[in-house]
C-alpha cells in the first residue's frame, strides 16, 4: 500500500505527518517538497534571520524526527502532475509515485510585481529560505532600501532593516498600511511606530517603474518622486499554489476548495494550509487564510479524519507579526462593518482593539499585550463577551474576573 502522500513540507505538511503518527496512523507517510532545505519555520525569515549574517534556519523538526517517526522525506522534488484515475503523481524528474490518499499542502508563492524593472538584480521577494539567503547576501553594501507593499512581511522587514541602520522607505498603494487585516487604529499605531524608527512611509502611492543600470536596481520611480535604492523588497501579497489541483480538474476558487473535513472535490484528495479555501465557521463563508495557526490546526484536524475520527475544522484563527519591538497579535476574525473598541496603556499607546459584531466579541488585536491576546482567544472561542465597560479598561485582571464570573455561573 502506498499510503498517504503529502505534497509540501511546510508548516502544514510537516505537522500533518507528525500528527498522523501521533494519532497512530500505521500506513506509509511520504512528504514531498520542491524546497531542498530541511523543513523550516517561515516567520523568522523576515525577522531574526535578517538580524545577523549567519543566523541559521530554524528547523520545524530535528533531522532525526523524520526517521524516528518513519516519515519518508523527499526534498528538492517537484510534483508536476496528479493523475487521479491511476492515483499517482508525476515529478519534474519524470519519476512516478503512487498514493492511496493525497494531501496538497503546497502553500503560496509571492505575487510578482508587473511594473517595468521588476526583474532587475537587487529586487527581491521573500517567501522561501532561498529568497531570504539571497536578500541577506545582498545586504552588505546596501544603504537605501525600498519596500514595496505595506503588508506584514514588508513591514517586518522594514523594521528589521531600519534597525540595522539602513535607510528604509515603504511604498503602499492603499491609503493605509496592512489593508483590511487590522483595524485602522492598529494600522495607524504601527505607522507611527515605524516612522519613529526612521522608516519613511509613502501611502496612497503607486510605483511606475523600477530603474536600473547594468542590470542592477538604482531607483524606484513613484508617481511624484524618485527614490534611490540599492535594494528593493517586493511584498505585495501571495497567491495560492493551486495549479496541480486545477490541472487535475479539482474545484479551485481563490485556492483549492475544500469542505469542513478538508476534502477537495475529488475522492481521496485533501488539502490544507495557505493554499485552501475552506468553510470558515466563524464567518459562515469560504475563506483562505495565510497563517501558521491555520496550516497547523488544519493539519491536526485532517489527521483525525485520516485516522477514522473525522472532525469538522473549526479552530479559532490567531496570528502574530513582530514588527520591530511591536508584537502584534490577532485573535479571531474581524467582520466588515463591526464596531471597534480601543484601549490604551498608561503612556497613551494603543494596546488592544476589540472587535464586536452584533454585540459579540469576534476578534481582538493586541500590541505588546500578550495576556489580553491569550484571554481573548479563550473568550472568542467560548463565545463569552464581557461588558463593554470591562473591555474598555484593557485591564487583563478585570477582564479575567468578568470571564471567570461567566464561566462559573
Amino acid at each position: 500500500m502506498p499510503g498517504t502522500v503529502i505534497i509540501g513540507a511546510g508548516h502544514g505538511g510537516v505537522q500533518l505527518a507528525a500528527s498522523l503518527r501521533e494519532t497512530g496512523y500505521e500506513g506509509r507517510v511520504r512528504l514531498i517538497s520542491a524546497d531542498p532545505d530541511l523543513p523550516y519555520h517561515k516567520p523568522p525569515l523576515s525577522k531574526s534571520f535578517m538580524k545577523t549574517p549567519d543566523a541559521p534556519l530554524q528547523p520545524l523538526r530535528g533531522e532525526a524526527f523524520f526517521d524516528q517517526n518513519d516519515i519518508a522525506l523527499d526534498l528538492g522534488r517537484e510534483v508536476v502532475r496528479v493523475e487521479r484515475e491511476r492515483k499517482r503523481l508525476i515529478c519534474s524528474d519524470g519519476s512516478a509515485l503512487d498514493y492511496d490518499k493525497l494531501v496538497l499542502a503546497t502553500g503560496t508563492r509571492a505575487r510578482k510585481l508587473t511594473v517595468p524593472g521588476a526583474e532587475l538584480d537587487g529586487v527581491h521577494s521573500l517567501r522561501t529560505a532561498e529568497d531570504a539567503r539571497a536578500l541577506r547576501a545582498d545586504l552588505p553594501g546596501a544603504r537605501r532600501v525600498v519596500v514595496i507593499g505595506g503588508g506584514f512581511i514588508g513591514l517586518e522587514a522594514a523594521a528589521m532593516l531600519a534597525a540595522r541602520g539602513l535607510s528604509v522607505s515603504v511604498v503602499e498603494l492603499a491609503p493605509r498600511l496592512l489593508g483590511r487585516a487590522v483595524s485602522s487604529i492598529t494600522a495607524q499605531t504601527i505607522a507611527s511606530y515605524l516612522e519613529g524608527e526612521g522608516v519613511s512611509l509613502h501611502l496612497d502611492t503607486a510605483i511606475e517603474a523600477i530603474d536600473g543600470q547594468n542590470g542592477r536596481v538604482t531607483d524606484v520611480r513613484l508617481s511624484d518622486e524618485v527614490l534611490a535604492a540599492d535594494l528593493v523588497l517586493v511584498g505585495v501579497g501571495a497567491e495560492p499554489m493551486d495549479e496541480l489541483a486545477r490541472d487535475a480538474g479539482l474545484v479551485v476558487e481563490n485556492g483549492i476548495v475544500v469542505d469542513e473535513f478538508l476534502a477537495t472535490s475529488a475522492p481521496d484528495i485533501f488539502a490544507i494550509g495557505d493554499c485552501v479555501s475552506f468553510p470558515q465557521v466563524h464567518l459562515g463563508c469560504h475563506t483562505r487564510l495565510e497563517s501558521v495557526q491555520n496550516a497547523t490546526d488544519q493539519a491536526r484536524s485532517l489527521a483525525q479524519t485520516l485516522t477514522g475520527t473525522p472532525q469538522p475544522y473549526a479552530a479559532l484563527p490567531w496570528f502574530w507579526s513582530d514588527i520591530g519591538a511591536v508584537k502584534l497579535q490577532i485573535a479571531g476574525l474581524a467582520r466588515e462593518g463591526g464596531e471597534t473598541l480601543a484601549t490604551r496603556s498608561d503612556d497613551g499607546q494603543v494596546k488592544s482593539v476589540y472587535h464586536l459584531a452584533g454585540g459579540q466579541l469576534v476578534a481582538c488585536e493586541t500590541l505588546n499585550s500578550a495576556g489580553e491576546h491569550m484571554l481573548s482567544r479563550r473568550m472568542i472561542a467560548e463565545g463569552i463577551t464581557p461588558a463593554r465597560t470591562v473591555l474598555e479598561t484593557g485591564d487583563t485582571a478585570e477582564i479575567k474576573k468578568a470571564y471567570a464570573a461567566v464561566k462559573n455561573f
Partner: protein
Amino acid sequence: MTKLTFIEPSGNRREIEADGGQSVMQAATAAGIEGIAAECGGSCMCATCHCLVCEAPGGLPEMESDEADTLEFTAEEMRETSRLICQIEVTTEIEGTVFKVMGR
C-alpha cells in the same frame, strides 16, 4: 555545551548536549525531543513548548511578563513549575536542568 534532560510525553527520558546562543526550545527541537510542536517558532504565542521544570540545580532566569501572561491563559493548567522553553536561553548556568514536556 550544556547538559539538559527532557522527559518526553511517553515517559522516555533523554539527555542532550546543547550549544549556547539558542533557546532551550531550539536545542530540544533540533535534538528531536518528542512533544514540542513549537508552532510559533519561539515567539511566545503558542505555548506548544510548555514544559514543567523538575530539577534546576543552578536555577533558571526569571520569567518576563510575556511568558507569564501567555502561560497563565493557555489551555492546559499552568503549574508552579511551568515554563515556555522558547523563552529560556541555553547557558552553562542551566546545566543539569530536567524538563518534563507537556505535549498535546
